[in-house]
């Protein structure tokens, strides 16, 4: 079996990889795992995660309560999309289910049916998570109130620095070696192209049988040394920069009316348009979008934009504009610009090297988190666990399934761009010209025409998530399941009203969360 493993990289994906491997393999005899970090994360930063974080922690055997005392975090119940289309200002995407089947018909068909009479009706009214999040209410899971409603699914925003330290300590406790050095040379076997040895800046070298390349978008091993090309998806995910701006005092919700036109007072009125710390706010901008994440004591605004349409300076001044109403702190000016390369590595696994994180690709970090893709990648590799020869069919299978997952996640992150109908800036005019991937246009067209969801293989997104997204971004079906007509309008309305009342009553019992 593969027993000597080296992981190269500084960021979260390297530590997710290391911790997962430590859990899965360190109990076996003769296993040696080494993490090579050159410049580990030194500053506090906020990252979002997906609800699979809890499964992942359970897999690692991490006590959830203890974890929350070590890693600075806040509860997150979903995303708050704002300003993405001209007709709808506002959509909360919660992680949980929105509505159960009625008489073997999916709930959303009834929404489509009723919407003809009640255009303000929304699927999110039936998601306990969305309703609670909009009111800033949530009860930590340990104290769960018994309720017939489906559980509120949540995840955590995390301090990246804390989380990296936590995972590093976890791995160290399992016997993983951590070396602080950079890789200066890579020695590759001429016969089969397998990586054999890494020479390090501290004068030592590391031999291993398998290598994880978590070195970021440069992909030092897989990209530079093994020359695996990178395929760009920049046309579908039109951003190449991310500027992170930090402030230490998140304060209250700041008006963003300067970037969001308030054309439909009607829909804005029907729901509380304020956002809360339980939601990560995702707002459309003239040259991209921005996402705001909180943890106690730290707020991070991430601006996603394309350098062809906005310079770093323009984005930074926009940021200062948003902060102007706040009392700025020293930290309020801290910023970091990261180059993004939407796309994927043509082979995620080549020879004896597997890329995880940005080295493998970048397909967005909003609806499905990058952390989720890293967890999923390592677990998938473990399911196909190779011996030293890394049979080529295992690589083929891994690459096949991983590409499916990447396409799936790419499509969901491209959906908001496809749905945007605004032509007010050159950036959005360009977006309106994009030829979207066929899998996405087929999915959208089918849903619009029939209200049904096309099936594609690929993990990470459930059908319910897709339906919520499609409705949330205003893909309004022209038809619904004929069986949804079987319930009389009167019965259906009373069912819906009861359901909303039950959710409202339940949410009222939950305490207000203060960030």
């Amino acid at each position, binding site marked *: 079996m593969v027993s000597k493993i080296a992981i190269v990289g500084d960021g979260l994906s390297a530590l997710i990889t290391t911790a997962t491997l430590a859990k899965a393999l360190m109990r076996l005899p003769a296993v040696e795992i080494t993490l090579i970090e050159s410049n580990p994360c030194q500053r506090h930063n906020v990252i979002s995660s997906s609800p699979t974080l809890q499964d992942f922690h359970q897999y690692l055997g991490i006590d959830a309560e203890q974890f929350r005392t070590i890693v600075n975090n806040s509860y997150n119940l979903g995303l708050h999309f704002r300003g993405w289309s001209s007709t709808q200002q506002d959509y909360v995407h919660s992680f949980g289910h929105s509505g159960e089947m009625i008489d073997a018909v999916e709930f959303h068909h009834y929404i489509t049916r009723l919407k003809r009479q009640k255009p*303000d009706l929304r699927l999110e009214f039936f998601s306990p998570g969305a309703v609670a999040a909009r009111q800033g209410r949530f009860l930590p899971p340990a104290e769960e109130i018994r309720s017939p409603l489906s559980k509120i699914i949540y995840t955590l925003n995390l301090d990246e620095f804390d989380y990296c330290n936590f995972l590093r300590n976890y791995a160290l406790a399992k016997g993983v070696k951590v070396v602080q050095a950079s890789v200066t040379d890579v020695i590759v076997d001429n016969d089969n192209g397998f990586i054999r040895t890494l020479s390090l800046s501290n004068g030592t070298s590391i031999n291993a049988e398998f290598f994880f390349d978590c070195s970021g978008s440069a992909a030092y091993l897989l990209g530079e040394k093994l020359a695996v090309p990178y395929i760009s998806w920049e046309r579908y995910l039109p951003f190449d920069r991310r500027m992170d701006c930090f402030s230490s005092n998140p304060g209250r919700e700041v008006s963003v009316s300067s970037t969001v036109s308030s054309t439909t007072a009607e829909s804005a*009125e*029907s729901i509380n348009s304020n956002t809360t710390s339980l939601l990560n706010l995702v707002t459309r901008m003239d040259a991209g979008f921005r996402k705001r994440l909180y943890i106690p004591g730290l707020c991070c605004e991430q601006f996603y934009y394309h350098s062809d349409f906005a310079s770093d300076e323009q984005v930074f001044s926009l940021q200062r504009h948003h902060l102007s109403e706040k009392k700025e702190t020293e930290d309020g000016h801290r910023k970091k610009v990261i180059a993004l390369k939407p796309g994927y590595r043509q082979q995620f696994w080549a020879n004896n090297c597997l890329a995880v994180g940005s080295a493998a690709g970048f397909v967005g970090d909003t609806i499905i988190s990058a952390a989720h893709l890293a967890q999923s990648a390592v677990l998938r590799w473990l399911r*196909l666990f190779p011996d030293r020869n890394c049979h080529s*069919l295992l690589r083929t*299978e891994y690459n096949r399934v991983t590409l499916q997952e990447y396409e799936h996640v790419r499509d969901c992150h491209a959906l908001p761009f496809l749905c945007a109908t605004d032509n007010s800036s050159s950036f959005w005019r360009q977006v309106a010209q994009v030829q979207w991937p066929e899998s996405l246009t087929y999915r959208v067209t*089918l849903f619009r*025409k029939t209200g049904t969801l096309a099936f594609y293989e690929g*993990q990470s997104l459930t059908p319910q998530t897709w339906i919520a997204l499609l409705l949330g971004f205003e893909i309004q079906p022209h038809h619904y399941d004929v069986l949804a007509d079987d319930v009389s309008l009167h019965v259906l309305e009373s069912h819906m*009203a009861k359901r909303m009342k039950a959710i409202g009553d339940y949410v009222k019992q939950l305490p207000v969360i203060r960030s």
Partner: protein
Amino acid sequence: MIDATRLFCGLGFSHMPEGNIVNIVILGGGSAGWMTAAALSQLLKKRNCHITLIESERIGTVGVGEATLPHLRFFNQRLGIAEAEFMHRTQATYKLGIEFVNWGGAQGQAYIHPFGDYGLRFNDISFHHYWLKLRRTGATAPIGDYSLPVVAAKLNRFQYPSTNSRSILSSYSYAYHVDASLYAQYLREYACARGVVHCIGEVTHVHQHPDNGFIETLTLNDGRNINGDLFIDCSGFRGLLIEQTLKAGYEDWSRYLPCDRAVAVPSPVLRQAPPYTRATASLAGWRWRIPLRHRTGNGHVYCSAYLSDDEALQLLLTNLNGEAMAEPLFLRFNTGRRKSMWLKNCVAIGLSAGFLEPLESTGIHLIQLAIMKLIEYFPNSVMESAYSTEFNRSMNMEIERIKDFLVLHYYACEENCGVNTPNSHGSTLNPQTKESPFWQYCHNLTLEDRLRHKIDLFSATGHVVNYMEGLFLEPSWIAVYLGQGLLPHSYDSRLDCCNQAQLQAQMRALHQSIANAAASMPLHRQILLSETDEGHRHGE
């Protein structure tokens, strides 16, 4: 902020659906026709559709003993059909899996593909890897001994699965063997009671709309005209509407699945009441045996290029468990699928949509699947083509995956002929099979890439290509791979360092607990008898 619940305080007004499908015409009265009629009459009952089923008395239906998959239970449930009544009316027996006899393999002459898993997943590694590791040292029982439905089936025992997920008795599912004609008859009563008009006659003319080619009217031999908005073609292989009228085209798969004939004949009831279907590899095809309460269904699927009808019948008759109880029924078919199963306002369901041989009992399942998809994508009179596009796309995906799985049986069978594995107990090969040019053809088949990848990955590494949707998932593939002796060259290498003695002890314990659980189940025969008594007591 508006209180959203107030949205519902307004007065409701009646909903007036527009452009609905009013007249549905089903052509054909076999299992496909009556299953469709029954399902539509129940599930669309509030639509006020007029459903007419046209059946020709002269054209026989292909109703023989039919083995099913567990999904049929959900179909019956959806229609509100009580299991006891269904069992009684269709002379049904329970089914835990399919026994494959003479298909090769190292585990002797036969293996069972069960409705259940093998062993338990442990440390995130599938059970079969542990089994493969132990097998190398010769210290293991056949893989089937680690599957409760397999062991129970061999003992002719049956019990309803437990609903307690921690019990070993919850590790399997079950299906039925039914008399397909009786099932159709039962569903006919069911459908007619729900307003389906049963019309005897033969179609003499199909009227299409001059512009768009939609089918409008069927003229019968007695001069009646039957109008429809939606036509369901259940007319069997010939595809009277979908092919003869609409020319949907047929994708021929006979290169991969070359059998093109079958002959069926009933025989007396099997006293031991096996709770499984049997599929025995034969000179140029295979023979089925389907145990029912009142008789046994038998048949021989074969390839006419390698075997004459007479030879096929002879092989079937000499292997019967008793006298033939009726004249043999010969069938011809062509494996493949209709290029468009839903075209214009016509949906093909059953044999008119395509044919896969019944080796894995998928016939009724594909009918059921098509019906449920039709209801999911039920159109209005505009016939939005997005519905048919997705219907065809998703049906194709299902049927292609089933095809791969069927081809595997043929391919893996011959692959092992002549390759005697060291552990086989003497000669396990059917001498007939070994010599057969038919099986040589199957062996030399150039597989399609998709299946090639699946088989190669398993052979090399022991890993199964998995997918989320599809009928046959990892346990099924493992059953056939290992059952037919396609043993991988390696197993998950993490097991290299696990403790052999400890593993052996765990496997022994598992083996024993499965054996005990199986022995504790009642005999299938007794279950059937007690149900019959029950039926009498309730005085039907």
